[in-house]
Structure formats: C-alpha cells, structure tokens
C-alpha cells in the first residue's frame, strides 16, 4: 500500500501507480518514525535540561 495516497500497489512496484510516490519498505518507515520520535524527545529533553539547570544553582 502506498504510504502517501494509500493506493494498493503490487509487491515489486518501486513507485506508486496512483500518485508516483517512491515506495519504501515498512522497515524504513518504522525506523524513520522511531528516529523522529527520538529526535523530538531529545529536543524536549534539551529544553527541559536547560530550564532545570537555571533552577538548580
């Protein structure tokens, strides 16, 4: 299934037949999602660490 338009494609299709989106494996999207979550958590952590360091003398 195409991640972009949800159209059904064939197993070996490299591009979506409906929207032309580059088709990637599920593993790719899983890893990207995990990495994005980690990056967002890191961003929040840095901000929290900064605020906490201001509070702690």
């Amino acid at each position, binding site marked *: 299934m195409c991640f972009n*338009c949800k159209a059904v494609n064939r197993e070996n299709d*490299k*591009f979506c*037949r409906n929207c*032309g989106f580059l088709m990637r494996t599920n593993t790719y999207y899983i890893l*990207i999602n995990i990495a994005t979550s980690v990056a967002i958590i890191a961003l929040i952590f840095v901000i929290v*660490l*900064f605020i906490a360091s201001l509070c702690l003398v």
Partner: protein
Amino acid sequence: MKCLNKNCDAKEIEKDDNFCYKCGHWTAKGYAFLQKPENVQNILTGSSAKKTDRLTILLEVASLSFILLIFIILFRGEDLFKPLYYVKRKIDSYVYGYNTSIIKTDNIYNKKTVTNLEEAQKLIKEDFSHQNYKCSYNLDSFMLENAIEDAYSIPKVSFCDTSYKEVEKIKTVIDNMYSLFPNMTGALTNISITNAKTKNEYIAYFQPMFQFVNPNEDINSYNKVNKTQILLNSYYFLNENVMKTPVQDVVGKEWYIKDATWETTIAHELGHYITFVIFLRENNLENITFVTKENESKINALLKEYETGVFSSTIVKEALDNYNSKYQTNLDLDTFALTISKYAGVKNNDNILIYDETIAEAIHDYYLHKENATKSSLEIVNIIKSRM
C-alpha cells in the same frame, strides 16, 4: 502498456495507472490527470499527491535539536549538566541508603607536562575545580573553602555538597589547629570529601602520598605530582542523620579522647599531618608534591621510612622518658599511650604500638583540652612543638 519514458523498460503498466511503477514517469492517463487545474492545485497544496518525506522531518528535527544543544551548551557551559548530577545523587542516595560524594578524589592523569611546584599545585586545584559543576552550589560554603585555602596555603579545599553548618564546624577545627600549630603550613595539598571504599572504613584519613599525575610514566620523561591529603568520609560528613549519634557511641566509649566529636577527628588527622611535616623537614624537605628525577628516589625512600613508624616511635619514646623523669614514674609505652585514649594505645598485627596514632591522639587531646590535656599528651605535644 509500456512506459512513456524511453529509458524505462516497464511493461506491466495498467490503463488506470497514473504513474509508471518502475521509474515514476507519468502515463498517458497520469498526464491527463495533471492537465486538470483542480488536480494541479491539489498537487501544489500537497493534498492530492503530497510528497511528505519522513526523512526530511527527521533531519529537520535532529538538526534543530543539535543546534539548540550547541547554543545552550555555549550559554550555560558545564552548569547545563547540573540537573543530571542532581538526579545521579538522588539515585545513588537511594541505592546506597546514604548521601555519597559526586566528586572523584582518585583521578589519575598520565602524560602531563609539569615543570615546577606551582604547576603541580595548579593541577591539584584543577582536578577538583573541573568537577565543581557537579556540586550543589552554595556561595557561603564556597567562601569558607576559599578562606581556608588562602589562610593556610592549601591548594584545594573541597566540601562538595556538605551543608554550610557542617563546613563551618570543620573550618573551626582547622582554624583552631592552625592557630595551635602555625608552622604546619606547606605540605598539605588538599582537604576533600570522598567516598571511602566501605562506609565505615574511616571517618577521616590522612594520606601522606597519592601520586595522581604521571604515576605510570618514566620520571626521565615526565615529572610527577603527589597529593598529601586529608580525606573526609562522605558517609559521615554528607549525612547529618548519621552524625546525630555522638562519635563515641559509634566507635566505642573512650576509643577517642574524651569530648571528641565527628569534626574534631579532623584534628586527629591533622596530628598525623604534623608528624609527617616534622619528618619531612628533618629530612630537608618542605613537601613531596612535585617529584622530579632529582628527588624521586629520596621521596620514595623517605615515604618507606615514614611508614615503618620508627620516626614516630622516637617522639613517643622521648615523651615517655620525659614523663617518667618528670613525674617519677616507670610507665611502659603501652600504658603511657593508654593514658591518652584507647585509640592512642592501638597496636598493629605484630602487637607493636602504632606510634602515629599515639601522637595523633595526643594532638587531638591538646586540641580539645589545651593545658588540661592528659600529662602524657602534653609531653608529646611539647616535643612536637619543639621540633616544628
């Protein structure tokens, strides 16, 4: 159907396909799709063929985090990581069941170039000041540390995480000891809170030599630096609930001199230090901080000799002779020592009196009771003062 792209060999394109499954080129139907303005509008706004690339979002967020981290580190410096050490202290306190020190006092540095005593002392200061950011900052305690350093020429005094009230008590002991024995300045490199190997290992400890710079290097290539230090066990000095129990109740009645407190044990350790200073000076050395190829063998030989206890035994024996002569008694060494305290009469595994402890307890007694100290303590202190 074949792909419109001449370089693509896709052959299984269906009539309903808008794009080639192999190269992504539009098909005839896809071209017709793109010709309609509403479809183009949808494409441009990203609602029909949106090309959201998760990888782009990841890279943007990661870059933002990294840039923000760099700016924050530049702005806050090492203080940025204070909360992490605060959490670590809390976790350690929970794991061990008592507060521990976050400072490492046994760091070792190799391949450092040291050319003189001042650089050696600077390395000792830096060993602690590089770790200062881990401590909870108390300006008043910091000022007291600096006052001790400046007044008594001790390169570094570190009471990291110790309460101000406790630091005041410790400073009082140090001030009083230096006023009683003003000539003991010169050899001590640091007084620090540390984590002993076991919580009950010691209350405070005088260590004549800890080689912390270039211990593993060839002396012909690198000079070395020793610490001559007094260490205070964090189990006691960072845990006021532990020190609520009087020291005599913990170590045993009459073990230490009468009226001893947790803080006055530092006077006992300074007593060890005083003996060491006398020993060094009688061997023409002011300190053993800076080690070169010229003095290394002498320092090592002296340390070995000091550890035999022979030097301390001469002081105690001379005091005993003076005592017996003055008071017309005939005490032996053991009895003489035990007149001070049980600790003063402690023996080693060979059943020989540990003379260092006798002297340290005598000085401890003199610190607490001045001219009202036991006569045996006064005899020892008289010899100490005459030799300083």
